[in-house]
Each structure stands twice: as structure tokens, then as C-alpha cells.
């Protein structure tokens, strides 16, 4: 195919509505169609990948200069929120309900006071400690060492807000706005997973899934949107929000049919091999925890086995659909 034809091939993908939807939905929507399409066009892997990357990179920097809360206040004033259920007549029946409600409220208050109203819940980890805290809505926070978080469990279903000092990984279940506040910036999401690092006067956010909005906290309402694999850093000396699309290569490498490992046990590598190729791999127990750093590709099982065994000084033997890995 000529160079021009290749560009047209990529172009047709990039402007294709279904293709855009498929890429932006993290390959969920219309996946049946596009997976089949990839299989039917094996020579065009590189072009398809290029088109995917292009669509993924069409993420725009968001600047929020409006104080949305204040603007809502203006709207409320102009629309007179008390008019919502206009013209309800209060009758005796209503009084009964109101009285019952007040009684129940008093009882509730009494119980809450009796057993204590918890305000902020503080969780700390010390040196070389690690802790995962489950939040009331199913979200979770994993705290690394020397990290402190604070949130209000009682108010959680009204407002999901956590204060953080240290390093933590958040997995947020879908729902209303979830906010992480730190001294240097804040992070806002709806349902996603991401990591936040605030140690040593540093502020760094890496987005794993979903979309994450990060704001720095020094008066301006600068906001940056992260998509999977993106990282944003803010250093104390330089209060600039830099956006680097680093993130872990694993997230996107699979599109190229490449599976990477960084100091991981051989047993994990073997599991992935078995998942990508229709084979059973047998490794002696003494070797299954050998540390492997490297990768293997989909497509050629011999090459893949070689990629895994050679760096470890091992060899493999194929017997039908079973592979034996030995020293």
C-alpha cells in the first residue's frame, strides 16, 4: 500500500464514530466489531495502533475559571428555590406527619448523641506500614507508609471528601463527585482509580482508569484532566502544573501484543503465557519465584518462550501442547 493509502486507512478510522466510541470507552463499546476488524486486518496492526493513539491523545486541557458554586447561588436566587412544590396546602394530616417526623428525629438525635457523633475519622500509617481503608460507599484507599488521611464517614453519602498527606492509591466507585484535598492541590473524580503522592512537598497524580481532574491550590482555578496513563506533577519550588503522559506502560502495551514484567516472579509470567497461548507450562517449584524483568510478544510461541527463558538462563522443551521449562 502506498504511503498515501496508509494515511487514508488511519484517517478513516480516526473519523469513524464507532471507532472513536470504542477507543474512548476503553475498548468496551462496539468491541465485538472492532476486535473482529483487527483480526481481519493483520497487516494493519501498526496503523490501527496509530489511530488508537491519536484518538486517545485527543484530550483537551480544561480550564475552569468560573466559581460554579457561586454561580449556582445566583441561579437559586433568581429562581427562588422555595417555589419548587408550589401551592401545597398544609392541613391537619400534614401536621400529624410533621409531628411524627420530629419525634423520630429527636429519637435519632438522642441515639446518635448517646453513641457519639464521630466527626472526622483520622487514619495514620507509620514508617514501613501499609494500610487499606474501606470507605462507606465501597471505594477504598491504600495508604503507603507515613501517610495520613481524614474524612467524615457520617457525611459520606452527601459529600465524598478526603484530606491526604503522604502517598495513597484510590479506587473510587461510581457515584457523586469524589474529592481528595492536599495542601498543594486537589483531585476530583466521579468513578475511577488513580494514585496521589504528596510526600516531600511534592504533588503527583497518576491516573489508572477513568478520568481524573486535578486542581492546584494557590488561588487560581487551574484544572487539568487526566486520562489513563497520564501523570501530573507539581513541585513546591515551581508551582507549574506539568502534564507528562508517562504512566505504566502496561496499560497500553497490550495493544501491541506485548506483555511486560518488572521484577515479577516466573509463576506470573507463566500464567500470562498460558493466557495468551493455548499451552500448559510446567516449571519446577524451586524456579517459579525467580524474578523476571522483560517482556514477551503475542503471535509466535517459540519467540515468546525464548524471551522468557533466555534471560533467566533457562531452556524450554515443547511436547504437544505442554511446555517444560528447566535450567
Amino acid at each position, binding site marked *: 500500500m502506498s504511503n498515501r493509502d496508509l494515511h487514508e486507512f488511519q484517517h478513516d478510522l480516526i473519523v469513524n464514530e464507532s471507532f472513536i466510541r470504542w477507543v474512548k470507552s476503553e475498548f468496551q463499546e462496539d468491541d465485538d466489531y472492532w476486535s473482529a476488524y483487527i483480526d481481519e486486518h493483520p497487516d494493519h496492526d501498526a496503523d490501527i*495502533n496509530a489511530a488508537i493513539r*491519536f484518538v*486517545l491523545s485527543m484530550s483537551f*486541557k480544561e480550564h475552569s475559571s468560573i466559581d*460554579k458554586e457561586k454561580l449556582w447561588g445566583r*441561579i437559586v436566587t433568581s429562581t427562588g428555590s422555595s417555589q419548587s412544590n408550589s401551592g401545597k396546602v398544609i392541613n391537619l394530616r400534614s401536621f400529624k406527619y410533621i409531628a411524627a417526623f420530629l419525634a423520630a428525629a429527636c429519637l435519632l438525635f438522642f441515639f446518635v448523641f448517646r453513641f457519639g457523633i464521630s466527626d472526622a475519622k483520622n487514619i495514620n500509617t507509620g514508617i514501613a506500614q501499609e494500610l487499606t481503608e474501606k470507605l462507606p460507599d465501597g471505594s477504598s484507599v491504600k495508604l503507603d507508609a507515613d501517610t495520613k488521611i481524614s474524612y467524615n464517614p457520617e457525611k459520606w453519602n452527601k459529600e465524598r471528601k478526603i484530606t491526604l498527606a503522604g502517598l495513597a492509591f484510590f479506587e473510587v466507585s461510581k457515584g457523586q463527585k469524589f474529592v481528595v484535598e492536599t495542601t498543594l492541590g486537589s483531585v476530583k473524580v466521579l468513578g475511577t482509580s488513580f494514585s496521589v503522592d504528596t510526600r516531600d512537598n511534592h504533588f503527583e497524580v497518576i491516573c489508572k482508569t477513568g478520568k481524573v481532574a486535578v486542581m492546584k491550590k494557590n488561588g487560581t482555578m487551574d484544572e487539568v484532566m487526566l486520562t489513563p496513563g497520564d501523570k501530573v506533577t507539581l513541585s513546591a519550588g515551581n508551582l507549574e502544573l506539568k502534564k507528562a*503522559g508517562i504512566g505504566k506502560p502496561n496499560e497500553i502495551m497490550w495493544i501491541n501484543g506485548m506483555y511486560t514484567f518488572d521484577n515479577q516472579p516466573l509463576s506470573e509470567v507463566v500464567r500470562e503465557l498460558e493466557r495468551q497461548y493455548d499451552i500448559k507450562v510446567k516449571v519446577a517449584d524451586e524456579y517459579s519465584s525467580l524474578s523476571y524483568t522483560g517482556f514477551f510478544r503475542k503471535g509466535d510461541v517459540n519467540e515468546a518462550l525464548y524471551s522468557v527463558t533466555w534471560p533467566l538462563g533457562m531452556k524450554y522443551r515443547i511436547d504437544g501442547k505442554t511446555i517444560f521449562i528447566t535450567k
Partner: protein
Amino acid sequence: MDDLQLWIRLKKGNHLALKEIYDLHAGSLENYARKFTSDIELIEDTIHDIFVQIWQKKETLSDTDCIIKYLCVTLRRELIRRIEKSRKTSGLDYIENQDTDFDLSIEDILIQDETNEKNKIKLQQSFELLSSRQREAIYLKYYEEMSYEEICEIMDINYQSVRNLISKGIIELRKFIVMWFLFLLIII
């Protein structure tokens, strides 16, 4: 809660529904409005007026199953009307691209060569070289993920025009990327 249900609640006079719609879409509306003007006060006032109008006319609103599209159509119409009006009174001719601050930048466009290396290039200038209508169409397609039909409705142009805007815009962008990349190669 889907859009249709939320809209019906609004029409019935539920003020909370108005707040929900605001919380869901005010950000997108601001973002979209910034494609037309950098006048923050104008944007705030327009969004404010739209929500107040919706509330005041709630009983007579037609049904919709896509609220953001409805809001975009309304916002676009209102903004253009007000911008035109202020231009008339200030005596300026309406020239496309003038006075707009397209705060858009394509972050991290990745180009991969045969050795699988990633090169990150910031292309804010390149995006601003597109026409304002191309930018608007591309923003609606790739960021708001609107369908071609929805963009037709919002921009009030026909299907073929939308396709042309986006197609030409993408071709230009990719040309700029290659040129920028080559430029970098030369100067490095």
C-alpha cells in the same frame, strides 16, 4: 437516572433536578462556551440566564433524551447572539477567529516510529491554526463525544458539512504534527 427521567422531574417543578442538571453539565457548558469567547462574565451570565429560563419555562419545555445536547444548542445560540450584539454596538466587523481564546491544546500526541519510541509534542499553536468551526466540531466530537447528528443540531449545519469540518480538521492537525516533528528534528 437517565436524561429523560431527569428532564421530566425538572418539568414537574423539582428544583433538585435543576441542580442535578447544573452539577452534571455546567462544567461542559463552560468548556464549550470558551470555544467562542474568553469573556468570563459573559459566559457566567449566559449560563445563568439559560438555567433561569429553563426553570421559568419548565412547564412548556419539550421532552428531550439528551440534556447536554439541548443545553449546547441553547448555549451556542445565546452566546453567538450576545457576541454579535456587542460587536455591533462596538462597531467591529465579525471576523471568525477574532477575540476568541481557544483554550484548547492537544496534549501528548504520540507518534510512534518503528522502534516503538514515544515522542510527546505539544501542539497548542497547531490547533489554533484550524478554523474556529473546525475546532468546535472536533471538540464536540472527540471531547464531548457527540454523534454526527447531534453536532448537526448544535452547530445548525448539515451532516456533510460536519463530516467535512472534522475530516479536514483532522487532516490539517496530522499535517501540522508531521511538520512540527520534522521541524524539531531539524533544530535538534
